[in-house]
């Protein structure tokens, strides 16, 4: 009898000690947060830590690309609390009023984000998004298969590499790089400029310069020495270079795209504050470090960048130098001019 009483007393005491702790430190305990993101784009142990520290349970759902995520968001399918779109998609979602405005008071760690990625043109004042990972678009090349280091997009149109070039099956990136080669903006809405870029890409197809046109398959094929040059995102380039040391990455001198995957809260989220707590957590230096180590993409968190070792800091794919950033631009949302792009894209895809 006495024993039981002691146990009950102890249990009550434990509860009494716990409850205020729960109330103070874990205001969102028990909340379920649905995170809609690229596959394997957060270190799983980060998610475990988040749950331990906040009591918030995270359900992780994947999309394969910005556009299929958009198709679901637009239709109102599913209720998501945090999504990870890229910069041009963030711009579009803001324009269409599909994102909640962030309460930045709940995200003090925004201060950790690199200055040049804060207050971006696609989302002034970071009112709707906080950068998560970022990088560039460039060329991955095999040093054994090229005559000189690659520096320019024009190499993709060079007869010398006929049949050994992988393009990217992505409307914005393909047309964008041709525009850059011609000295135009990647965001142009000028029909003549687009026609010129389109003609260049059609000719590239008709001259049989390219031997591949895909996105996901590029990295493994480059590891296997299947081509000399490939258009690639810096994140994929890092993956490939790690497995084949003859590969090198360059952001061409004409300039390129700088991409940012941001964290946003879609309209209709029932757990906005918990979602902000999640976004803030992801910007904490130790967490950002874990994610960078796991994903091996460039983190926008200052402390992580300062922590890079000499090799990493010198790796242009992981840590783009200032001059590279200066010649790159974000993609703008061009959905209102999609008709213009559509015709050109179809001509390229069907070129034979």
């Amino acid at each position, binding site marked *: 009898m006495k024993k039981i009483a002691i146990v009950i007393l102890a249990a009550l005491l434990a509860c009494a000690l716990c409850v205020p702790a729960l109330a103070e430190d874990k205001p969102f305990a028990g909340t379920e947060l649905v995170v809609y993101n*690229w596959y394997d784009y957060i270190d799983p142990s980060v998610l475990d830590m988040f749950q331990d520290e906040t009591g918030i349970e995270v359900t*992780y759902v994947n*999309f*394969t690309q910005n556009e299929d995520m958009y198709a679901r968001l637009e239709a109102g399918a599913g209720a998501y609390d945090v999504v990870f779109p890229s910069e041009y998609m963030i711009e579009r979602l803001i324009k269409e009023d599909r994102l909640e405005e962030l309460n930045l008071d709940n995200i003090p760690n925004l201060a950790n984000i690199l200055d040049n990625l804060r207050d971006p043109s696609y989302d002034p004042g970071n009112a709707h998004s906080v950068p998560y990972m970022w990088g560039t678009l460039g060329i991955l090349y095999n040093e054994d298969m090229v005559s000189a280091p690659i520096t320019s997009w024009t190499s993709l149109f060079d007869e010398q590499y006929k049949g050994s070039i992988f393009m990217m099956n992505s409307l914005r990136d393909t047309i964008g790089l041709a525009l850059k080669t011609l000295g135009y903006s990647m965001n142009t809405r000028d029909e003549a400029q687009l026609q010129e870029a389109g003609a260049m890409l059609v000719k590239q197809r008709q001259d049989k310069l390219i031997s591949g046109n895909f996105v996901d398959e590029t*990295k493994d094929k480059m*590891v296997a020495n299947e081509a000399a040059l490939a258009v690639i995102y810096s994140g994929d380039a890092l*993956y490939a270079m790690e*497995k*084949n040391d003859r590969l090198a990455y360059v952001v061409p001198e004409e300039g390129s795209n700088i991409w940012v995957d941001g964290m946003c809260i879609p309209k209709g989220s029932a757990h906005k504050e918990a979602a902000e707590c999640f976004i803030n957590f992801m910007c904490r230096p130790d967490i950002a470090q874990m994610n960078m180590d796991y*994903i091996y993409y460039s983190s926008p968190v200052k402390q992580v960048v300062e922590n890079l070792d000499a090799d990493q800091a010198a790796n242009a794919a992981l840590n783009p130098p200032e001059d590279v950033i200066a010649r790159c631009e974000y993609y703008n949302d061009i959905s209102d001019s999609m008709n213009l792009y559509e015709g050109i894209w179809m001509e390229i895809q069907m070129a034979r």
Partner: protein
Amino acid sequence: MKNRGHRAGKLLKGLWLALVLAFLYIPIIVMIALSFNASVSRAAWTGFTLDWYVKLFKSKQIMAALNVTITVAVIATVVSTVMGTLGAIGMHAMSTGMANLLINVSYLPMTTPDIVTGVSLMLMFIFVKVPLGKWTMIMAHIAFDTPYVLFSVMPKLRQMNPNLYEAALDLGCHPAKALYKVIIPEIMPGIVTGALLAFTMSLDDFVISYFTSNTDQNLAMIVYSAARRGVEPTMYALSTLMFIVVLGLLLIVNRRNGLEEIA
């Protein structure tokens, strides 16, 4: 003389089947080999490892997806097999015009690209305010599975002697009993084939599943979304295990000659 010719013929038949099976299994062997590759990339063999198998069982996401995949495929297969078989029997008894109409409707899910089916089903569910989830996914799976059952059962019905059923009725058999006792046993191989094909379609679907589900993800969706960052050999490991389990079951059933009885 005839015997020797028969034996030679059997040898040739065996050789043909061996070639066909080799064609079908060489990629599977490559897949199994990749599950033991130390490198994440399928392009480089950097040594033998069992790490991916360890990682596989630790991945909550993959295990949850396996659960969703099997649940959805099994429920969809059972429902579509029953509905498709009854559908075929009913259509077999219909006037040609009506049957033709239904057959043409059955072509639709087979012909419509997955992306179109997926998006239009999603829009429909949202339009009628049915929240997306596991059940909407199952309904969609049933819709694209059932025609495969239908087209597997129909040839057996056409092959069946139509007098059998009439004779049973004439002998005073209740129509439901005649169906169960006469028709079903005759068309059983078609039903089994239909169920197998439906299950196969369900296991592999990712596009329609993606657009008709909410937070439940099947394996195909996981593999497809993993492609962007590189498919880890954990996926090959899972396929290898599934393959071994299926093969094992098959051998046990074969040993007992059980398949001979059900089909």
